[in-house]
């Protein structure tokens, strides 16, 4: 019987080409890359793979690219590496379906750290990062607002120039909530939100006046971590953790996930989680034209995919309105932090199916849980001439408190 030993079955020409890699560049945590077994289960959920249908813009393909980079098979300046590192939305949908437990979000941060080191990072991202990491630079935050609202000029309607900026000291040290939960909690004023949507924080304080709002908060660093500067991202998160007492309540899914990664899950609560935990019961409901409003939700990717928070926001909406589930509520809206600014065309292409679904659902409002998503939905809906309005969960609940009959 001609039974060749199995080792000969591996063709010579390719010996040593597979794993284990001969050398490694030390860009990625050893062990993180090894986890992927290339099964491809992550392909169908990836929004960029849906756009191109090409392996390179799938999670599996990107991990293969990272491996090639790590093994020195792709050059540092390789254009495909650069393109894919920036094309990825960082939505982490791929992580939720990966049976092997690949921590793609961490890999992406390490990849971008390397890819965008120094000059290669997009200028606009660098500018934004510089602005948001300095607490108190309100004038500069107007710049954020200008960029964030796009070239189309200022947003319709006057945007108040300042958010609640905090009093410098914790206002109440976190007085007990209605159910008597005694743990102190502070409201985080997101740097983008502060500049762009100060009304969100104000709405939160209407719902939960006992939240402490320390001043000079700065940025949590999520923006940096997602744009190739993990070290600053981590530093800012730790600093913010020191500045804010107790549980940090955030109104931004991206910040929540980033902070939870560096400060621990127990330190961080997204608004809906916090409201649920403290036994919040909305008073009143939101009505439109004499009937209960129809309201849909857009999940925040990082909230859903990184922290697994999906139920509390839905239940809160259902308590004040008729909740409508969008078929693609869990798919990325294309905002993805700075993505919509850096890659507007791709960002729109990801958003389009969602706009269609929102229109088809016949809702009055679509709720977002993150300022970036809010901005993305507002711009998209406006562009499409839709009557549907996008608002933050906090605003919806504040409207219900007022017994609002908007419109």
């Amino acid at each position: 019987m001609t039974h060749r030993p199995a080792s000969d079955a591996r063709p010579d020409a390719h010996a040593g080409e597979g794993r284990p890699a001969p050398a490694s560049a030390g860009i990625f945590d050893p062990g993180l890359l090894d986890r992927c077994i290339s099964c491809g289960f992550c392909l169908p959920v990836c929004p960029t793979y849906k756009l191109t249908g090409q392996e390179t813009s799938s999670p599996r393909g990107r991990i293969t690219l990272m491996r090639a980079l790590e093994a020195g098979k792709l050059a540092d300046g390789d254009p495909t590496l650069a393109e894919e590192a920036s094309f990825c939305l960082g939505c982490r949908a791929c992580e939720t379906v990966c049976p092997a437990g690949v921590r793609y979000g961490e890999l992406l941060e390490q990849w971008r750290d390397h890819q965008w080191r120094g000059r290669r990072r997009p200028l606009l991202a660098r500018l934004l990062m510089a602005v948001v990491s300095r607490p108190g630079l309100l004038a500069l935050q107007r710049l954020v607002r200008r960029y964030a609202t796009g070239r189309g000029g200022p947003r319709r309607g006057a945007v108040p120039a300042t958010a609640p900026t905090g009093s410098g000291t914790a206002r109440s040290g976190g007085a007990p909530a209605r159910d008597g939960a005694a743990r102190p909690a502070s409201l985080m004023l997101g740097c983008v939100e502060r500049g762009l949507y100060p009304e969100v924080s104000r709405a939160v304080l209407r719902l939960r006046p006992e939240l402490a709002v320390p001043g000079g908060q700065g940025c949590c660093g999520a923006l940096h971590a997602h744009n190739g500067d993990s070290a600053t991202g981590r530093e800012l998160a730790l600093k913010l953790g020191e500045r804010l007492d107790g549980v940090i309540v955030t109104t931004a899914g991206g910040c929540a996930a980033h902070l939870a990664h560096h400060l621990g899950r127990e330190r961080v609560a997204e608004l809906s989680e916090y409201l649920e935990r403290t036994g919040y019961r909305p008073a009143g409901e939101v009505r439109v034209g004499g009937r209960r409003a129809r309201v849909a939700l857009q999940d925040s990717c990082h909230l859903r995919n990184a922290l697994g928070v999906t139920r509390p926001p839905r239940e809160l909406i259902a308590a004040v309105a008729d909740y409508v589930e969008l078929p693609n509520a869990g798919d990325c809206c294309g905002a993805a932090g700075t993505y919509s600014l850096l890659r507007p065309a791709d960002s729109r292409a990801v958003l389009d199916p969602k706009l269609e679904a929102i229109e088809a659902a016949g809702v009055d409002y679509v709720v977002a849980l993150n300022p970036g998503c809010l901005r993305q939905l507002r711009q998209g809906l406006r562009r499409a001439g839709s009557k549907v309005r996008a608002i933050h969960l906090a605003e919806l609940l504040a409207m219900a408190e007022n017994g609002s009959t908007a419109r």
Partner: protein
Amino acid sequence: MRGDLARDLAGIVGERHVRVDDGALAAHARDATPLFEASPQAVVYPGSTAEVAEILRYATANRVPVVPRGGGSNLCAAAVPLHGGIVMVLTRLNEILEISREELLARVQPGVTTAALAAAAAEQGLLYAPDPGSHTVSTIGGNIATCAGGLRGLKYGVTRNYVLGLEAVLPTGEIIRTGGRLWKDVAGYDLTRLLTGSEGTLAVITEATVALLPKPKESGTGVAYFASLADASRAVTAVIAAGIVPATLEFLDHKCIAAVEEFARLGLRLDAGALLLFGDDGEADAVAANLDRIKGICADIGALEVTLAENVARADALLAARRCSLPALSRLGPLTVLEDVTVPRHRLAEMVDRIDEIADRYELRIATFGHAGDGNLHPTCVLDPHDHAAIERCHKAFAEIFSAAIALDGTITGEHGVGAAKLPYLEERLGADQVALLGRIKRAFDPAGILNPGKLGS
């Protein structure tokens, strides 16, 4: 060379659908098989049968290898471009062309995923029976090219049983249509069956007509825990011997249970040596009766516990968890070398014992799961990718496992195929004369030897 190739291919499919950048080549250097990797010189995404034909004519004329590719989920390195050349990705051809309730069939392009076809059929109250664990990513073209099996194989058979007709392009560029829309048709050699399982070495499949079934009214699932995999194997034999052919009989050993539980968190029992997942579908009464009888048989064999899933959601969760066994196993160690042997069902327990003995002797961690009802086992070696000595031992252990399967009247692959990984063992299974015949068939289809060289027929 690369530049010429890019230009020539772009002339056929348009520039947008050709990639020759290093990144794209690296991304297509492998499928889901560990330890095999080789880069192509170009990747091309054709958008029509005519383009496929033109690419193949070009490749034959210029002696450039072409490797067809679907979802790239193959587990025997069948989609790895060992000799370089062109990787032809067929996922742009992803339309469901027709679903006929009158004729109980579907006509689809090759890039449609198995799950998409199943969902479209279900919408019409129909069932596409083949059900590989990889169904969300694998394509119908890939399923046919590998004759994929799956979780319903016991009652419903494998992909081969559902392919009625094919449109395929020969390496020389001719477009042929084999079979058609008929269950009964014996005109000529059965080329439909020959192409099914040909692993992209004879022709490129560009359209398939597949049989559908009426969707079963009810389904049910249960779980039995045993002290050992050998006990679970005995239960499988007893179920079949009792004249019951359920839709699903899958088993996992304790290492797989632990890995799957870590991913899916279903509350599986971690103290059991093995788990048998059984399921059936059909009329409600018959399903209930069959599940009850299987429950009784498992108890008689000495099951530690047998429970029926209380609802569809729980049953779906169990099946989904089973589909994830392989990737979940990689949580135990980052290099998972999975194999695919089949033995007659009544010899399952013997085969399981042999695998354990071989694993012990080579000091390897081999977890085993599989489509127990089909006698199809997936012993999976979990390794440290940097431990070269262990990888060597792993190859030797699998060589012995293949021989053991053949000695028990079994085979070296039940569903994943031969690919590059199993080619050295093919002769032991088929004999020299048959392997030589395969070579002659290959040359008849592919005189220039350009289609997926280094695999079947080479």
